[in-house]
């Protein structure tokens, strides 16, 4: 493979101190993203996928804190960067698109203001030039009558249009990495298809790497190269999308796939995963999925499985694929 590693996250721990105790929202996450690839970060609400994204951007707010770990972006540790330098990287070399464009766009400024701001801060363009760049960007995002749209405020645009503006802002400084956090969850399915196609097109044209945070396995399948499945603050399984979806290894991944109703396949029954996600402030001692796992074994309750590699490029955090060893608190070495 010619692909080069762009981002490498090692043993990231982001915790939130609350009056109920410490919430280990992200608890030892390790992942890599190569240039030009899309890594899907999949999981249900509260599994830590969004906090992982925010941690990479160093946008975690109190009471959240990055406790330890390493986030090396193009071989430099982002966690060691001074704030001013981080501000240049954020929105410059790494950009982010959020789920809800209505609450992430500033309601008091026009589209033009918001795109130009980004161009100006990162020294790409200003004044008249910034305006022309903005128009080009909006056109590239498939927005008709781009020149007129510049004068609009976010509330004057439709949901799909707002998300296109968000993507235009994210793409404005030619980032190398885009973190898209549930970019289409707030949209109708036909608009979702338009926005996902747009992201795929930008990725192809600009050789962008994308971390796609989503709960939708269909989107994972159609729009990503590799996927990491998260459960209760851990990555429980990682691998190339085809093999991960066709031969899921972790019982949680398998369960998740059986939960989703498949279109036009009434013959495939849906089988729910019993129980619910653990309370992040009172996690079980052993494997976090043990209380819901159909394959649970004696030692799953006592110790935390490490991350094992049953096949090249596949990793899974489950005792079905490795020895218990001395792990009390799993430390990733992937």
């Amino acid at each position, binding site marked *: 493979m010619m692909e080069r590693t762009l981002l490498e996250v090692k043993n990231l721990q982001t915790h939130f101190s609350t009056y109920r105790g410490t919430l280990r929202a992200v608890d030892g996450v390790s992942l890599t993203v190569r240039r030009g690839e899309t890594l899907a970060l999949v999981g*249900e*609400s509260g599994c830590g996928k969004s906090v992982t994204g925010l941690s990479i951007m160093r946008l975690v707010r109190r009471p959240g804190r990055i406790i330890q770990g390493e986030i090396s972006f193009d071989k430099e540790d982002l966690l060691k960067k001074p704030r001013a330098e981080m501000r240049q990287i954020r929105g410059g070399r790494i950009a982010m698109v959020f789920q809800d464009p209505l609450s992430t766009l500033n309601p008091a400024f026009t589209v033009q203001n918001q795109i130009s701001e980004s161009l100006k801060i990162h020294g790409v363009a200003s004044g008249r030039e910034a305006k022309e760049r903005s128009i080009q960007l909006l056109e590239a995002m498939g927005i*008709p009558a781009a020149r007129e749209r510049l004068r609009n405020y976010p509330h004057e645009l*439709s*949901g*799909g*249009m707002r998300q296109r503006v968000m993507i235009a802002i994210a793409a404005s400084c030619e980032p190398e990495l885009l973190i898209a956090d549930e970019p289409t969850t707030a949209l*109708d*399915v*036909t*608009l*979702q*298809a*338009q926005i*996902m*196609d747009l992201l795929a097109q930008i990725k192809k044209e600009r050789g962008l790497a994308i971390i796609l945070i989503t*709960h*939708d*396995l*269909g*989107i*994972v*399948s*159609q*729009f990503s190269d590799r996927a990491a499945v998260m459960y209760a603050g851990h990555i429980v399984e990682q691998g190339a*999308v*085809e093999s991960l*979806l066709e031969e899921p290894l972790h019982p949680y991944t398998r*369960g*998740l*796939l*059986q*939960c*989703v*109703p*498949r*279109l*036009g396949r*009434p013959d495939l029954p*849906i*089988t*729910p*995963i*019993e129980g*619910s*996600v653990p309370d992040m402030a009172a996690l079980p001692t052993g494997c976090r999925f043990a209380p819901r796992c159909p394959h649970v074994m004696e030692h799953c309750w006592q110790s935390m499985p490490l991350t094992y590699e049953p096949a090249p490029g596949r990793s899974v955090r489950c005792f079905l694929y490795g020895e218990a060893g001395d792990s009390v608190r799993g430390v990733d070495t992937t």
Partner: protein
Amino acid sequence: MLEIASGELRQLRPRMQMIFQDPFSSLNPHKTVEQIIALPLRIRGTRSREALDKRIKELLQLVGFDLSQAHRFPHQFSGGQRQRIGIARTLACEPELVIADEPVASLDVSIQAQILEILRGLQQRFRLTTVFISHDISVVSHVSQRIAIMYLGKIVEIGPAQSVIRQPLHPYTRALLDAVPRIERGAQKEAALLSGDPPSPMSIPPGCRFHTRCYLDQIPQCRSTEPQLRAVRPSHSAACHLAASQ
């Protein structure tokens, strides 16, 4: 039903009940689970404590809710548990018709599957007639026998579930189906991508309301005459001038 007085309507209401999308705002935060379910039972005339307790217990068991938790308040439960409470309350009236408005839209997939299975079990057990409102066509295809597709306030296609999904008649239905990202990688069709946003319901396009986004070769009627729902196949109808000719 649209013509009867509100007093009479109240008499009819127990026969038709609703399950709401948001289990956070549809349960009274000041009442315990028991009280929430007892209310419709009381209104319908169950008075004695024993009879109430017995019925509450039955209803909670039907939806797989932990009985030992029944004295707690809604905010102490997760979305999935709350949705179970809502369903138990719906069943308290022994309705013949249940209108479920996006009952799983706010839930995670693993919880969504639990609720869908509960709903399906109840539907079979009590022979409930259900109107299942949803934006998720995969979910709809899983729970329903017949599907109606709506666009800008009108039903544009209606028919047996499998027929609608396998052989859609209306171009909008086809676009909807194609837009769903499939898990099976080979199954993704070359999507008939709809461009633009749906028009505002304040200014519905003349003629066929879908013509502004339609990708078929249109005929003049598409822009001038509103197509009516008509049967193209037995019990499968669509409102499209071009539906039969394809």
